[in-house]
Every structure is written in C-alpha cells, then in structure tokens.
C-alpha cells in the first residue's frame, strides 16, 4: 500500500465513533492540563494511564497522544494570558504573547497560536506518514549490536540536548538504567537488587516512577515557591488575526514547523527544544527585526508552531525504533507494554491499524483542537482562577490511584512515596529527572541487546565498532560529547538555555 492508501486506512480506523470519542477526550484533557500551570504532560499522561486500561490498544494510544499534543495547544493560552508558561514548551511564548495581551491583542495572539499549531500539526502528521515506514524498514534489519549502539547514541543525544550539567545528566542516565535493572533478570531468572522484597520481583513500577518524579515532586517544589499568579482576563476580544497578522506570520509558521519537525525527531528533542530554537531562529532571520519581546506576533507564531510539530514528530523514533526521545514517549512505550505490545519496528507491520490509526487520529485531533480552543478560551480562563491549593490535592489523588491501579498493588503506592523522596533530593541538587526516565526504559533493552551481541560475537566487544551502522552510531555519540565539551559550543548552549 502506498502512503496515501495507508493514511486512508488509518483515517478509517481513527474515524470510528469510539476512536473519535477518545481522541476528543485526550485532546480536551490535554488542553485542560496544558492550560493549568504546574502539571506537565508527563504527569498527565501518567495520571490518565488508568483510564486506558480497559481500552483496546488503538483508542488507548490515540487518547494518550491527544493529551500530549493537546497540552502544547493549552500551554500557549496560559503563556499569553498569565505570563506563566502552562507547559515548559510555552516558556518563550510568554515573551511576546503576554506583551501582545498587554497591548490588548490577546485575541490575535491566541488565534495565531492555534492556527500555527494546526498547520504545524498537519505537516508533522504527513511527515510521520512518509518517514516512519522506511525508517522502520531499516530498523528491522538491525542486529543486537546496532540496537545497543543506537540506544547509546539516543541516550547521549538526549543528554546533550537537555538542560544543565552534562556529567550530572549522564550520571542520571546510569542511575535510571540501574533502577530499570531491579527485578527478575530474564536470562538467568535471578531476582536482582530486590532486597528480599517479593513485590520487587517484577521490577520498579514505571508509572510509579513517572508519578513520583514528574507529578508529586513538581507539586512539592511548586508549593515551596508559592508565588502569586495574576490572571490577565481583561477582554480577549476577537480571536481572528488581521490579514496583516497572517501575512507577517506566514513565514514564521513555516520556519517554526520545519525546525520543530526536525528537532522533534532527534532523541532528546521534542516540543521544548523546538520552541526555544524556533524563537531564537526567528529573532535572527525575521525581517524587519521589529519588536521581539515587545509583542511581535511572529514571536508567538514560530515557537507555537514549532512545539506542536516537535511534539508530533517525536513519535517517529518511538513508533519505528521503539526508542523514546523524551519522557512522554517513554510513557507511551510503557502504555504499549501494559497493553501487551512490544514496541519496535514490527508494530507497523503486525499492528497496522494501531500505527496508521494513531497517525490519522493526530490530524483529526488537530482539527478538534482548533475548534476546541478558539471558542472555549473563556472556559480555560475561568479554570486559571482556580487556586493551586485546591488543585494539588487532586493531583495527589490521581497519582496515587493511578499508581495503584496499574497492578492493583499497594506496594506501588509506597514506591511512589519512596521515589518522591529520592526525586526531591536529586532535584534540589539540580539533577534533572528526564535523562533518568529514559535510562530506566532503555536499561533492560540495552542489557538484553548487549548480551545478544556478545553472544553472537563470542565475547568480542569489537563487534560494536566493526559493524558499520553500529560504529556510525557510536562515532556520532562521541562527536556529540566532544562537541559539547568544546568551550565555544558550550557557551553557545548555555546562552541558548538562558533565554
């Protein structure tokens, strides 16, 4: 089947009333959470996992995906109206978006964010449809050695692109890998690092880990810096951007879409990096360089298009290689595994309805979001008025029930508490949780593939560098590390993170 035929088939799957409904629920919840500051998409996807247990894999994945890209839409609303990023990927939108709102142009800012996101979402959906199948084809030919090197490359790339100290990030990856190894070793049947607790034989719960590191610790840190938030609710006015607005931002949307799509595919990329890069790029190339930071509509259009494009193309490595490029994708992989599906290139051939249905649903979801966002802005604004003291206990409830219902084990609730304590201390020391979560998911896969590679090569580690594709991945990883260690580039990276 050609790509269009496949997309048509996917549309058929996605347009069943059940899938449309779950797509809607996902987009709605995603927007809701995106609007609320203090709950990120990772925590949301984790909290909403229990809702998908009773579902088939296709609607479950469609809903979870809707939450992720829906959150990118919602985040912009808060950024523009309150000057607080609803999501970390909307941080740069606050710069120009809030200024626009102060000048009485909140409506066009919201409008252009929604339109830019929609265009970017459509393009990204097509990109996934065209690029994922050939990539999966290549990946199917990978031997264990290639897979191991690919994972090393993926982890290094994720670390290099992440914030903060490189050494700390790599250390967090190692910590995550070690936590991932807790439990029964599939090869020997030995239960490792369980401290005699029978509950740990199945390993640490991934949902519990995600709740602890992205849900509860976030709440705790928010409570520590309880600041006042001022909602900018004065009239939003007409949402429609003027013809002049559209003309000015057309190329910004195009540039943001391209940049976001490319950065989303990279490991460690995704929405956050895409929006930062798009804003900086826009500041450099946009002509005339009018008033960035003082309410330039292009400063809203570019990053909002980019974060949506990036959010969607980050599905490509997850769907084709079974490798997560950010913590949300790691959760998606977790969700697949709970559904009994081994993530990897075979998903596309063995479960075409899942793959193409998910892709087609993204387009439908983007359309829904456009419709959902423009008229419902009033509702979202009201939501912003809910004080945090009423929100965070609800987050606790969702996290705890979610962690428990994965396996109906009380022990998982205690795991949440223990991991929260660990995560709190590490966050206080500036150790980011995202690399750790990637390590946690990839750790067991890395061990398995390294074992097989060594088995095939009779214990010769050189196999990792004599096979060309494997060597290429390792060289690329080394080059990334070298590049980031160079002082000049390092300064550049820090400058980028500062802004």
């Amino acid at each position, binding site marked *: 089947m050609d790509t269009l035929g496949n997309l048509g088939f996917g549309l058929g799957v996605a347009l069943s009333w059940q899938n449309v409904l779950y797509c809607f629920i996902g987009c709605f919840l995603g927007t809701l959470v995106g609007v609320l500051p203090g709950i990120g998409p990772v925590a949301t996807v984790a909290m909403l996992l229990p809702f998908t247990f009773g579902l088939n894999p296709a609607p479950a994945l469609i809903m979870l995906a809707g939450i992720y890209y829906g959150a990118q839409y919602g985040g912009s609303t808060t950024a523009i109206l309150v000057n607080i990023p609803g999501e970390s990927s909307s941080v740069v939108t606050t710069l120009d978006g809030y200024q626009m709102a102060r000048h009485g142009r909140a409506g066009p800012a919201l409008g252009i964010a929604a339109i830019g996101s929609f265009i970017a979402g459509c393009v990204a959906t097509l990109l996934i449809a065209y690029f994922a199948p050939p990539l999966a084809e290549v990946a199917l030919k990978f031997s264990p050695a290639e897979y191991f090197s690919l994972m090393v490359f993926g982890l290094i790339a994720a670390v290099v692109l992440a914030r903060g100290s490189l050494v700390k990030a790599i250390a967090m990856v190692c910590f995550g890998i070690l936590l991932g190894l807790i439990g029964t070793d599939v090869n020997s049947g030995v239960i490792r690092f369980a401290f005699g607790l029978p509950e740990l034989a199945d390993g640490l719960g991934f949902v519990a880990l995600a709740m602890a590191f992205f849900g509860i610790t976030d*709440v705790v840190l928010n409570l520590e810096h309880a600041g006042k938030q001022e909602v900018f609710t004065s009239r939003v006015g007409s949402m429609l951007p003027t013809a002049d607005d559209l003309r000015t931002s057309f190329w910004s949307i195009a540039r943001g879409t391209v940049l976001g799509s490319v950065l989303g595919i990279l490991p460690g990329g995704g929405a956050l990096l895409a929006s930062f890069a798009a804003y900086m790029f826009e500041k450099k190339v946009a002509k005339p360089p009018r008033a960035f930071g003082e309410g330039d509509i292009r400063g809203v259009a570019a990053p909002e298009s980019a974060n949506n494009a990036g959010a969607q193309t980050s599905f490509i490595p997850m769907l084709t290689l079974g490798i997560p490029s950010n913590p949300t994708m790691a959760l998606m992989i977790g969700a697949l595994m709970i559904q009994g599906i081994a993530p990897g290139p075979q998903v596309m051939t063995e479960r075409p309805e899942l793959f193409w249905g998910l892709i087609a649903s993204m387009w439908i979801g983007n359309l829904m979001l456009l419709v959902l966002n423009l008229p419902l802005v009033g509702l979202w604004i009201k939501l912003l008025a809910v004080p945090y003291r009423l929100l965070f206990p609800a987050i606790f409830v969702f996290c705890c029930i979610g962690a428990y219902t994965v396996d109906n084990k009380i022990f998982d609730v205690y795991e949440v508490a223990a991991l929260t304590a660990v995560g709190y201390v590490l966050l206080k020391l500036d150790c980011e949780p995202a690399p750790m979560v990637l390590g946690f998911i990839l750790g067991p896969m890395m061990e398995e593939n390294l074992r097989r590679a060594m088995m095939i090569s009779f214990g010769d580690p050189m196999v990792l560098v004599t096979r060309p594709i494997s060597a290429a991945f390792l060289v690329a990883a080394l080059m990334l590390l070298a590049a980031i260690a160079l002082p000049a580039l390092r300064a550049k990276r820090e400058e980028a993170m500062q802004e």
Partner: protein
Amino acid sequence: MRIRSPKDFWAGLIFVAIGAGFVLLARQYRLGDLHRMGPAMFPTLVGALLAALGLVLALRAFALDGEAVPRFYARPIGASLVAIVLFGVALQWLGLVAAIAALVLVGATAARDTRRLESAALAAAMIAFSIAVFVWLLGLPLPLWPNS
C-alpha cells in the same frame, strides 16, 4: 581545600554511593564473561560508571564555583510523603473512601494557605468523583469500604 560547588559535591557523593552500592550488591550474582554475560555483568559496568561520574562531580566541586544547596522546606515534602503512605495503609485496611479522605486532608496541609472546610469539601468531591469515574465508569477493582 574548600568545597566551592556544594550542589555538585553532594550530588557526586550520592552518585558514588549509589554506584558503589549496586556494584557491591551485584557481587552476589554470577559475573560470567563477555561471551556469556551473567546477571552481575551489566549492573557492575553501569554502577562503576556511575560511581566514576560521581567522583568526577565531587572532585570538580573543589575546583569550580557553583551554587549552594538550596533550603529544604520540611512542610511540603513531609506532608506529601505522609499523605501518600497513609493512602496506601488506608487503602489496604479501610478502603478507598477512607484512603482518599486521608490523602486529601493530610496532603492539603502541604500548602500554607489551606483552609479546613475547603479541604473537607475537596475530599468529599474527590471521593465522589473517584467512585463515579474509577469504580463505576471504568470498573477498576478498588475496594471501597473496610473488608469489601
């Protein structure tokens, strides 16, 4: 010698402890050789790498300037942890209704501006919502009451 970057220093020490801990714990499993890697091989390699990175961090903290360790506030983290543990205990022995009540009422004290009546109302709302959505709508097997 003065610690110039306390955050890095303590993070480094923690990583050394974790890495070394995993290496030591792995000694009770079979190491094997590269051809047939035993269950201890991979954790030992990764644990050693973690300890080494931690050592680099800790030693570097004497040379490079960095931030001080920020204050730990006992109330938010303490109340949250107690609330979650209470939820677990209550869910096991008393059922979901009591568990949510405990979680919300104790958890709410993590914030300084909590009001008692408001928390009670919130607890009631969360109980109603959870029963309606999780138990009735989604049919998740959650015990509602003691011994049920």
